[in-house]
């Protein structure tokens, strides 16, 4: 390192700011991958050629945008449907009080573009589902900073669906876009590098994120014991019975009036049963399923994600993968610090990267409603609200059995719920086509009668 004192006021050379980065990118090193080409090409790649998509402009998203632009990724798109709330300000450092109510993606992009010279961050203030394959195809790397399982599953399916295969079943190079998925919860987090069809996709490791266990209805209805039981009773049962804001008004947990009603209703019930501990804050936590979140964990996880993006883009060092000893880093910061990077297996019957229909065994007599219930409970599928259709007998088209997503079709098909599935499926081994909100593309389910 040079030790002579340089007077810096005189000439400001904006590229001097990359000196540290270039130190890393200009020289070969023992941990560099075989595809690492130290020198100007790599710099050019980083600054001008690579386009990164950051999904989510929340706690992780803010950190990611900062880290990635400081790492020299100057062309970034960021997508987020949310607007800024006061409760974001304890960690989402690109936002100020005066930004509350504005688009996260827009405010974050503006801030970064102003702070980091040369950065070109393009915001998209919309749902991920509003963008199509053509949009996602533009990016060389996609980073996920999401807080919902559903959005992760949808992105995973979308990105996996972009991969193309030649006649021998080999991936066309460059069509499987690598994804870096970060997640945090309180003092814990994870980083998962997904190379579609090479490493396990998010759907393959879904069992790591078990579905939320709900309280039994009889506990809520008859024998509540904890303050949470009282809140869930107010939310799940009493709201629908009373409809306090009119028959057409559904519960909206972000509406303070609704929350106040939930709180008062839960409190009354708690008092009636001698249960302590219902407060407004507690009610909010239970009803909105709030997960604690702090800046530091986001910073750690996002930094690890950003470094993986740098490695994926430049091969300056080996990225997390099965070969390097693990594609999934878990971080536990609750009791001292524990981290471990491990590998999972790809699942043969993965509905997303298994590339074949998921087989389910059912009894011939079950109704459409029961089949749908099975698809929701099946640990491989874990669908949320599937629409199902079968190949039509006569034409090459499809016949809809049930579709809850389009109102007119729902009206027409909801009576089918009580009919036996055998009205549409005459024999074992018919492939159903399934559309579900957690998936970006249609899935095939092979129904076998047992």
């Amino acid at each position, binding site marked *: 390192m040079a030790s002579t004192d340089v007077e810096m006021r005189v000439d400001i050379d904006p590229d001097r700011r990359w000196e540290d980065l270039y130190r890393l990118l200009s020289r070969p090193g023992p941990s560099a991958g075989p595809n690492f080409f130290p020198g100007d090409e790599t710099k050019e790649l980083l600054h001008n050629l690579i386009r990164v998509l950051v999904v989510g402009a929340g706690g992780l998203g803010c950190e990611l945008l900062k880290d990635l632009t400081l790492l020299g990724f100057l062309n970034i798109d960021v997508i987020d449907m949310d607007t800024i709330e006061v409760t974001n300000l304890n960690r989402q450092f690109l936002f100020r009080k005066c930004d509350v109510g504005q688009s996260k993606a827009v405010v974050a992009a503006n801030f970064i573009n102003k702070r980091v010279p040369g950065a070109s961050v393009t915001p998209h203030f919309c749902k991920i589902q509003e963008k199509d394959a053509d949009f996602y195809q533009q990016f060389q790397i996609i980073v996920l900073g999401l807080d919902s399982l559903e959005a992760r599953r949808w992105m995973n399916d979308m990105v996996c669906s972009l991969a193309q295969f030649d006649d021998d079943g080999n991936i066309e190079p460059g069509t499987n876009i690598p994804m870096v998925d970060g997640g945090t919860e309180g003092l814990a987090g994870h980083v998962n590098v997904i190379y579609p069809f090479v490493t396990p996709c998010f759907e393959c490791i879904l069992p790591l994120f078990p579905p939320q266990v709900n309280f039994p209805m009889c506990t809520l209805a008859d*024998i509540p014991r904890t303050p949470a039981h009282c809140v869930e009773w107010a939310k799940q049962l009493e709201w629908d019975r009373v409809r306090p804001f009119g028959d057409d008004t559904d519960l909206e947990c972000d509406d303070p009036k609704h929350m106040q009603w939930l709180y008062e209703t839960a409190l009354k019930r708690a008092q009636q049963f001698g249960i302590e501990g219902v407060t407004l804050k507690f009610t909010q936590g239970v009803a909105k399923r709030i997960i604690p979140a702090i800046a530091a964990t986001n910073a*750690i996880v996002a930094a690890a994600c950003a470094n993986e993006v740098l490695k994926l883009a430049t091969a300056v060092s080996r990225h997390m993968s099965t070969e390097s000893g693990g594609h999934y880093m878990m971080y536990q910061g609750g009791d001292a610090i524990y981290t471990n990077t491990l590998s999972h297996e790809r699942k043969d019957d993965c509905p997303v990267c298994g590339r074949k229909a998921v087989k389910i065994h059912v009894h011939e007599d079950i109704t459409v409603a029961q089949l749908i219930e099975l698809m929701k409970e099946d640990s491989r599928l874990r669908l949320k609200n599937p629409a199902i259709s079968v190949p039509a007998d006569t034409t090459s088209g499809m016949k809809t059995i049930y579709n809850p997503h389009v109102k007119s079709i729902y009206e027409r098909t909801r009576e089918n719920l009580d009919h036996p599935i055998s009205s549409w499926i005459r024999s074992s081994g018919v492939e159903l086509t399934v559309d579900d909100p957690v998936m970006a593309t249609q899935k095939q389910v092979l129904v076998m009668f047992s």
Partner: protein
Amino acid sequence: MVASKANHSSDRHVISNSERKDRSIRLWGERGQLALEKGHVCVLNATVVATEVLKNLVLPGVGAFTIVDNHRVSEIVMAMVMVMVMAMVMVMVMVMVMAMVMAMVMAMVMVMVKHSERDLGNNFFVTQESIGEPRCHEVMKNLLELNEEVKGHAVNEDACEIIMSNLDFFNDFSCVIVLWERGIPLFLGKAYGMIGLWRNVIPEVCIVESRPEYAKENYRLANPFPELSAFVEKFDLESCRHPYIPLTETTPTPFAFSSPSPSHSFALQALQRWRAEHDGKMPQTGQEKDQFRELLDDFQLAVGKDEENFVEAKALARHAYSPFEIPSEVKAILSDAKAGADSNCQDPFWIIVRALRAFVEGEGGGCLPLSGMLPDMHADTKSYIDLQNIYREQAARDCSHVSARVQQILTSMNQRADVISQAEISLICKNAANIRLVRTRSLQEEYTSPCCDDWGWMLDMPEEFPHYLYVLLRAADRYKALKISLNLATSASSSGCISPGKDPKLALHGHALHTSRSK
């Protein structure tokens, strides 16, 4: 000491602006937040590492921070950053602070140093317009934007000069020793390319609310207190009659468990019966434990249903036959010299721990005070609430025993009875099974430890010994120390520097720092 100068907080500090803090408070609680707001953190050198640390502390609302940094000197000390934390008290926030501070090692990717243009490529909290300005002011200004409640101080001076008589940190541990002796935690971080090091230097931090993910709880099933036994006896397992559900015409047989009884009642009664049949002994061998669980199966058969509370009772069986062991971390605290009867440590934490120990050896009969918490279990509301109250009342009795012990200790030390509040005692009693103590080695111990004298051989086998990184980082320190001393020697501005004749390669053998302490 800079860190103590602006200790602005008062005891009447209240949490305001709670919506902004909601997501943090849900993690570390109101007391954790208060502790953070009373904290004052001092960073020496506003490197990226330090700035990231501060960002992660300012956002949730640390009380105040002080940045000591002047450009000329940061060129010398370079990638080294020291963070001192003055977050009082014994709450878990210390753990948090450490975790947060940890953010930096990873949050930072490059070695930071010399010129502001390079700051621009690394440090998000300097702007293009600020090139050439004092770094401490720029960083402070941009950090304070994040949270208007936080107070910031910038000291545009040489960090080393402020705290030490001797300029060269690596030659003199006086600063570190001063902090150590005053009990102020010190954190050291550095980052080079893709690797980094974080070191906590903590003389002692006592954590009361450690908030473990899986709390270890003692239900005293193996040695029930009278009120618990009395409660359990109300449940007649022979007839499976529920005491609160009167027999009516609509409940045709006494076996009708229309309402579930708490699993505690089954587990305890099964245990009592087992002991009655086995000369008062607990199930001990694997076979006996199996027999005990079979007994629970018999009860379940009598009920004739796959009752969820039997499943829970079987899960509780382990608690029933193995007396609760005090967690090893707590045992270590109770047997610490500061918890000894002859200790005269005046710290409230340790006085309460002494009382806790006396309780365990006396009234507690080997048990810690109960927390008063009862997890949810399958049961009807009244049984559950009654059982919960029984545990709460016993917890209150335990706590009053501990309070009495505290008063005795205070009297014996000629201290006023009100120097320790009831709230402090209750908090420790409630968390007795989860109190934690963090003590690390001092830096002096680390750097003078003879064990690293011959670590050079590890470098030949990096796969087996990941410690090689440690050796390399120590070597880098030594290399820098050598360079610094060379520079200083040529500018004739320092005394006590390292002899410039030494080969920097020697640094690879690890004892860079203490060999340079040539005083």
